[in-house]
């Protein structure tokens, strides 16, 4: 990696570790390899959102040309959010694409992602299915996002009413994640979800 990239990432790593937000356990960053090209980020789900009390893991790859190009960031924790792919974890956020500026840092990126969890942009979606649900059936979106936070991000179970539907599909021999995706995508309509799985 270029001089400037390594020198900067080392500083930014320290900046996150020493930050006020890290002290409050809101953001965290860890090394994955010793040459600072890959990092593991962690953000806490913001309060008063369906992601509250969840911990979301991020894969952060630092390009050779950093900080002139943005870091490549992806959610490793599965999440139900209009701007994050529920399949791949790819993120749609302008500062990670064309609005990146060299003065931004790991800390500001992690905080921006936390802010994205609190303020989705359904008109600029990464996951069209989630975005449609967000716009057309907001209550169901909130329930689904809470359920995914419980299953994948360690948040408490705030939607026990959904469990029986999942169990019915599980009893038919459907893989748990597959059942969850089908039900989530069909607004938890069991008949429609069953149809998508078995058609």
């Amino acid at each position: 990696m270029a001089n400037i990239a390594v020198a900067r990432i080392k500083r930014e790593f320290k900046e996150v570790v020493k930050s006020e937000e890290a002290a409050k356990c809101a953001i965290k960053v860890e090394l994955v390899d010793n040459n600072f090209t890959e990092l593991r980020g962690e953000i806490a789900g913001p309060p008063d959102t369906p992601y509250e009390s969840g911990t979301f893991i991020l894969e952060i790859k630092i390009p050779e040309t950093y900080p002139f190009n943005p870091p490549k960031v992806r959610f490793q924790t599965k999440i139900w959010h209009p701007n994050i792919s529920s399949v791949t974890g790819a993120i749609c956020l302008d500062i990670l694409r064309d609005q990146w500026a060299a003065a931004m840092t790991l800390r500001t990126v992690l905080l921006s992602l936390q802010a994205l969890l609190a303020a989705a942009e359904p008109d600029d979606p990464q996951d069209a299915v989630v975005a449609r649900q967000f716009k057309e059936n907001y209550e169901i979106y909130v329930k689904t996002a809470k359920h995914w936070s419980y299953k994948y991000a360690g948040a408490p179970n705030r939607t026990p009413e959904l469990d029986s539907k999942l169990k019915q599909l599980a009893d038919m021999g459907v893989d748990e994640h597959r059942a969850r995706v089908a039900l989530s995508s069909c607004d938890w309509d069991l008949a429609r979800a069953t149809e998508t799985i078995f058609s």
Partner: protein
Amino acid sequence: MKVTVKSWTAVATWRWVANDDNCGICRMAFDGCCPDCKIPGDDCPLVWGQCSHCFHIHCIMKWLNSQQVHQQCPMCRQEWKFKE
């Protein structure tokens, strides 16, 4: 008493007059140099934009060259124009 100075050695210090301590691009101190240089000072000078933000010239040139469409200040995103 009469003193005769036979020889003397001048010592001077200098520092950049910038509105910040570190370059916003490489995050190194302005009184040092960018990570690609060895000697601070005239070999690795600072430049100012009309927005009043200041960077190592090597750093801002790399940033501007990496921008395809609009050339903006990496701090405030105003259009980048060199001061003076």
